[in-house]
């Protein structure tokens, strides 16, 4: 947010040719992993994010379990090769913060009270990072939760708006993020438009701030449509044969 000297607009358009209220291309695919109970793969601009969901299952270690509801854990992680300078593996302060607020956003929609003493685990891997990875991860995570068949009140759709080159814009690209004036990532529950994730840094007047939040909400609604389409496509698919074997064995267990 420190170098407003860099040109972020050319001929009234953004560096990548987008309009101020235009999202980068987004692609979501549900059910991409074998072992996980639910999964989703998302491309958003050059971001590539993979999410796996496990659970609900027994909460271990047990002293973390809650007799009233399932515990939801969220791990946002960047692969070492996802950024230009290799990132040391393991959580850092930034990823810990993102994991915390993302978990809180999902807790609003997942029907945790249906699974006391259980645990639902969400694992997000950022494979290639290109600004907006927290929004991309959270968007993919709610698709993966739905793919796992976990009951939810609503999806969570996430998107950022911000200010760059003096303009309030939707979905900041990498240079807009690095050299822009402000970033406002939010997430909403699309049906009632409640804000479940909200952060801001930079500098915005009240008017700009209102405009940015409004723009980000619009972005979230568009993303919600893409989420629904991905899930629709997934539920139309025939389950792969190996999954069938799994089910059989489960049956034999029950009959024991």
């Amino acid at each position: 947010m420190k170098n407003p000297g860099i040109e972020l607009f050319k001929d009234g358009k953004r560096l990548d040719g987008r309009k101020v209220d235009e999202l980068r291309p987004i692609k979501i695919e549900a059910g991409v992993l074998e072992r996980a109970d639910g999964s989703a793969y998302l491309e958003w601009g050059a971001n590539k994010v993979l999410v796996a969901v496990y659970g609900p299952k027994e909460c271990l270690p047990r002293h973390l379990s809650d007799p009233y509801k399932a515990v939801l854990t969220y791990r946002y992680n960047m692969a070492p090769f996802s950024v230009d300078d290799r990132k040391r593996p393991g959580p850092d302060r930034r990823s810990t913060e993102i994991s915390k607020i993302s978990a809180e956003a999902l807790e609003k929609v997942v029907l945790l009270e249906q699974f006391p003493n259980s645990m639902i685990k969400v694992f997000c891997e950022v494979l290639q990072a290109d600004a907006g990875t927290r929004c991309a991860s959270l968007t993919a995570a709610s698709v993966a939760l739905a793919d796992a068949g976990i009951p939810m009140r609503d999806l969570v759709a996430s998107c950022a708006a911000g200010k760059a080159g003096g303009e309030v814009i939707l979905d900041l690209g990498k240079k807009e993020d690095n050299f822009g004036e402000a970033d406002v990532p939010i997430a909403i529950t699309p049906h009632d438009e409640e804000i479940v994730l909200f952060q801001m840094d930079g500098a915005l007047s009240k008017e700009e701030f209102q405009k940015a939040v409004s723009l980000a909400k619009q972005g979230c609604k568009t993303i919600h449509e893409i989420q629904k389409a991905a899930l629709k496509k997934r539920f139309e698919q025939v389950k792969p044969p190996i999954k069938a074997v799994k089910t059989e064995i489960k049956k034999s267990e029950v009959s024991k």
Partner: protein
Amino acid sequence: MSSEEIKWEVKSDYIHALAQKGIRQDNRKTDEYRKIQITPNYIPHAPGSALVKIGATQVLVGVSMGVGTPYPDSQASGVLMTGCELVPMASPSFESGPPRPPAIELARVVDRGIRESNSIDFDKLCITEGEAVWMVMIDLHILDYAGNLFDAAELASIAALYNTKMPKYEDGKVIREETSGKLPLLKKPIECTFVKIGNMIMLDPMLEEEKSLDARITLATTEDSSLCAAQKGGNGSFTEKEIMDTFDIAVEKGKDLRKLI
């Protein structure tokens, strides 16, 4: 379930019941702070420090000054680092060990308020471009946790920065015994934290309110009434309108608190 947890469950029911009637346990207004006390220079041996009490909450902040190499992408700017220990003395629920997510969130939100507002004049902290710059290290030391650590920690940090003396730097060495003036500062960002309990939104949550919250929002504003940092927490939600309303209160309260420093 431990007796501690049962106690908090009962308290939480009580706080929620009060909130439905629009009242707070200590009868404060929804936009009223508890009593605030600021003791600048509490640790005279440190370059900068301040103790802030908001009600029974006590946060001590110390500022250390060092010299290091700049970040590759800002070769002529000083460096800010903000660390936080939720010292186990401050609450029965804090534990020794490396910082956990709440401490990390706290440190990062305080850091963003200072960094994004350009509170510190980082350009003046360059000693030799690309080689040596001043490093400002803020350590948040939570002594007594009775609610609203965010506002207390930010206030203490700003107060500590505003009494920070720069050590001398000569021939590649920091001379801690001598002072070369004040830390160059530009702005006083002020954070205001609100919690939502049921449909009631209230400023400066005390401990019982924090333990009962549905959602939490922190807004940091600067002298020019603009927003420089914000953070939502908790597994509840806010409407767009609610956020805009807290914005207005944060700007007003920011003006009052800024005068205390």
